[in-house]
Structure formats: structure tokens, C-alpha cells
């Protein structure tokens, strides 16, 4: 099956990009032929707008010929982030544009670890229009699923919880014995953060 994955991709947006890479790996492991669409300057196969109404239009254009579209939803895309009243207007336009695009594309799976981290997307008529347009939404927790069912009006059979996305809790309190001064603390923080980064990039 030919799958189009849309989302932030390296070298930018490190954490969000790691989620996209994990989605690509999952599709490839499932035997699918994957093409990635991401923003300008990214390492994706295809590069175009992926946020805002322009992103919605671009996704319609690029999705021709694909059996499935997997859309990564995060704080910067597919909805644009902007502050204040202007931001609310932008958000409204983007919700409507993507709601329409999802309905026209039909076979879209949205991967949204926590929809509440996408400011202003859950709740309100435009938010409901957005989320209810997806064929399937995969979230990271039961709480997120409940939010989409009750607040965003998504049908229960369309929302599932990711099986492998739950991060493994790392004990925060252990391993600081030698961090007695600033130099040692800086070194320990850098080492531990690098380990966490690698784990996140592996999708754990």
C-alpha cells in the first residue's frame, strides 16, 4: 500500500520530527511504501507547506494516488501557531481548511499524542469540524481519547490509543551522586539529556 506521511521532518523540529520518523518506520515495518511530505528545507521526499490552509491545499495535491495519509499533529502543524486575536482567526481558518481537506481525502489517520498540546484545537465548532473529519485518530492516552470523544465530538470507533507510544518513565532521582558542583552537574545533565534524546528519536 502506498502511504503518504505528512509531518515535521529533520533537520528541524527535533522532537516533532522524531515522531514523524517513528511513524515512517512503523509504516515501512508494516510492508507499506512510504513517501514523506514536509516543509521547505526538510529532508522529506516532497517539500511543500504542511501548516495552515496552504498546507491543507498542498496535502490535497500531494495525496493523489496514495491509499492512506498519515498526518502528524503537533504544536506547529497542521495548525499554525500565532498569539492573540490574530492567532484565533488563523486557527479558525486552519481548522476549517483542514476539516475540509480531511473529508476530501477520506483515508487520513491523524497521530496526535496529546491533542491538548495543539493550542485551541479541542473544543468549539471549528475544532469539532477538524477532528471529526479524520477517518482515524491515534492518541497517546485514555485521557486524550476521552477528550476527543466528549469535547471534540469524534465517533468512538475512530479514536484509538497508541500501543507503543507511552514513554518509559525514567527515574529522575537516581544517578546524581557525583553532581556535587556546577561542572559535574552540567556534565551529568548533558549526558542524561543526550540519552533521553536518543530514546525519543527511537520513538520510546
Amino acid at each position, binding site marked *: 500500500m502506498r502511504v503518504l506521511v505528512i509531518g515535521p521532518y529533520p533537520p528541524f523540529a527535533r522532537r516533532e520530527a522524531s515522531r514523524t520518523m517513528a511513524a515512517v518506520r512503523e509504516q515501512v515495518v508494516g510492508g507499506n511504501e512510504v513517501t514523506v511530505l514536509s516543509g521547505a528545507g526538510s529532508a522529506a521526499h516532497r517539500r511543500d507547506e504542511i501548516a495552515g490552509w496552504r498546507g491543507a491545499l498542498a496535502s490535497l495535491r500531494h495525496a493523489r494516488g496514495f491509499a492512506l495519509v498519515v498526518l502528524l499533529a503537533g504544536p506547529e502543524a497542521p495548525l499554525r501557531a500565532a498569539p492573540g486575536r490574530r492567532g484565533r482567526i488563523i486557527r479558525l481558518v486552519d481548522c476549517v481548511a483542514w476539516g475540509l481537506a480531511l473529508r476530501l481525502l477520506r483515508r487520513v489517520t491523524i497521530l496526535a499524542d496529546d491533542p491538548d498540546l495543539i493550542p485551541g484545537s479541542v473544543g468549539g465548532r471549528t475544532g469539532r469540524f477538524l477532528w471529526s473529519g479524520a477517518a482515524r485518530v491515534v492518541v497517546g492516552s485514555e485521557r486524550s481519547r476521552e477528550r476527543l470523544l466528549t469535547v471534540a465530538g469524534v465517533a468512538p470507533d475512530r479514536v484509538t490509543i497508541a500501543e507503543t507510544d507511552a514513554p518509559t518513565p525514567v527515574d*529522575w*532521582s537516581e544517578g546524581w551522586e557525583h553532581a556535587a558542583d556546577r561542572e559535574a552537574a552540567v556534565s551529568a545533565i548533558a549526558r542524561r539529556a543526550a540519552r533521553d534524546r536518543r530514546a525519543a528519536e527511537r520513538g520510546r
Partner: protein
Amino acid sequence: MSGRGRLAFVAPRYGTDVVGGSEAVMREAAHGLAARGWAVDMLTTCARDHYTWRNEYPVGRTAVDGITVHRFPVEPGRGGVAHARLSARVQAGEHLTTDEQLAWLDGLFRVPDLFHHLVVDAAAYDAIILSPYLWWTTVTGAAVAPERTVVMPCLHDEAYARIPLLQTTLSAPAALWFLSEPEHELAHELVTLPDHHVVTGAGVNVPDAYDPEGFRARHGLERPYVLYAGRREGGKGWDWLLRAYALAVSRHALPLDLVTFGVGTVAVPGGLEGRVVDLGFLDEAEVGDAFAAATAYVQPSANESFSRTVMEAWLAGTLVLATEQSAVLRWHCERSGAGLCFGDEYELAQAMAFAAARPDAATAMAARGREYVLANYRWEIVLDAMERSLEEMR
């Protein structure tokens, strides 16, 4: 009339209920110099809120703790969408024509009566002190009597600092007062500076005592917390901090809440209900206690020219975790040996874990911060530097 001389401080906002680093420095410097015998006028607007620039204080002249405050009405800008477009072009690094630069400056607010006052009365002042560099009051005010003008730019490395019209506030005045060495270096990179410029730093008031336990009890804070204080807005790193904090909580189950006070809306993301505590605007008497009760203070803003809250945290004996994107914060942390810089959300999470796991080491580090502030940023030291500069201008 004072024997030391007469000074005009020109600030876009003034008041103890106004949140903003440059506004606080201007207010406290004005009162500090007045206490040393200078006759001080504070020329300001009727606005309290830098989002709306609505006139909230009454127009007119009042005496406030030894200085005379003149408030002038703000004329709202007619920028709207056009101003937002110009701002977006500036942020994208595009060059604006002179007309466009002027339209951008006018877009937020104007205070023509304040400018008129300066035009008429400038000769009555020995020095006119303006801050920060990017507002209408400073850009226009600096043009009235440049030979007697001091600008305290509160500059940081941002796209607006490259607008030629705003750069005149760095090149034209008689003197510049910088708050930190990185700010001074940045100004040199941008324009040719006047000969007379000095790093004065900014002063911080030293509380007599702290009451962290009382603060916790008054606000019902039962769990340890990291603190963020100031403007809760994207440009100050607040939105990023919320996302990074969510990662730290979900990945490490950190036992630290995130407590915040200041201005701006706090929209708590789902899943963090009860973990992010917004105390709103805190009375000045409580601010020190909020810092003292925190496990660590987090400063995520890359746009800092001094960072007063970092000093307040160190004074209170609290560890500082600061973004390495700010040259000023890196400078403070390295010079003092009292702060930890983070490059991304993973490093912030681990720095918070360190603060929670090693309170002894964190306290020892923060103690060096208190020494650093007392050695460099007590108001007596800063006011001495400002007075030396004013004397040199005569």
C-alpha cells in the same frame, strides 16, 4: 529645585503594577537618583498594559515618592493588519523602506503630547533618559535634544534591533547605558556607538528577609515547584516552557509543579491541570518569597538584556535554570557560576531533576549567585555608575 540637577526619565509605562524589566529599572533608577538629590520628572503615558496601550491612568501631574510623574494620553496606533504584516516582514529579515519603518513605529501607539512637552521643556533638563530602544517614546524623544540624551536601550538580539530607524536611538544620543556586557557587544555589532557609553548594569532591591513557608501556606502550595515570573507570552519563551514542562512530567514523573506569576494569559494544557499554578499578579512584597520558596527558577526567554528575575532568584538563594539561547543569561551563569543553562527540553528536564534530587548542591550553587548579585547589582553600585556618567556629560 535640587542642587544636583534636573533629570527627565521617559518611559512608555510607569507604576508599581506595571510588569516589565526596563520599566522597573527606569522607575527604580528615577527614585534612586531623586533620593540622591536630583530633581526628577517621570514623563510617561496613561497606559498600564503593553498589549492594549489603553489609557488607564488619569492624565496630569502627580508627586510620587519624591519625583514628579507627568502622564500623557496615548493615541492608539492604526496599525492593525498592516502593522502585523510589517512586523512579519521585519521578523523575516526583510528591509523596510523609510515610510514603512515609520508606519511600523506608529502602528502600536503615539504620545504626541509627551513629545510636545519634550520639545518645549527639553532645555530645562540636564539630561533626558529614555528606555527601551524600540518604542515610539524613545525613538522620537531621542531626536529632541540628543546632546543631553541618555538611552538605556535594553537591547537584545532580535529582528527589530536591525530596523535602521530604531538604530538611531543607539547612534544619536550623547550617552548609552547598557545593562550587561553582551548587550554592549551586540550594540557594537549593530551600529557605531557614541564615545560615551557605559555598562551600568541594573539594580535589584535586596529584601531584608524571606518567608518561603508563609508564602507556601498563603497560596496553598504543598508540593515543591519550579517558578516562572514575568510576561507569560510566546516571545518570552512561556509557550515553549509549558511544552517542555509537559515533557518533563510525562517522561520523568518529576515531583515539581510549575508555579507562575505575572501578566498574560495562562492556558494550561490538558493533562497538566493541577500541576501548573497561576498566581496572577503578585504584590511586590510577596515576590521575594515566591522566589525563595521555589526549588529552581526557570528563565526560558532568549530576549533578555539583563534579566532582573534571575537576580531576584539568586538573591533569594534559588538555583537558576536559563536558556543558553540568550547571550546575556549565559554570561550571567558563567560569570557567577551559579546557574545551569539548557539547550533544549531534554536538558531542562534533567536540570529540573538535578534541582529536585540534589537540593544541597543546588543551594550551594545559588549561594554563589547571591554573592554575584550583591557584588554587582545593588542599587548603590548602579546609581554610582549612572551618576558618574551624568557628571561626564556636563
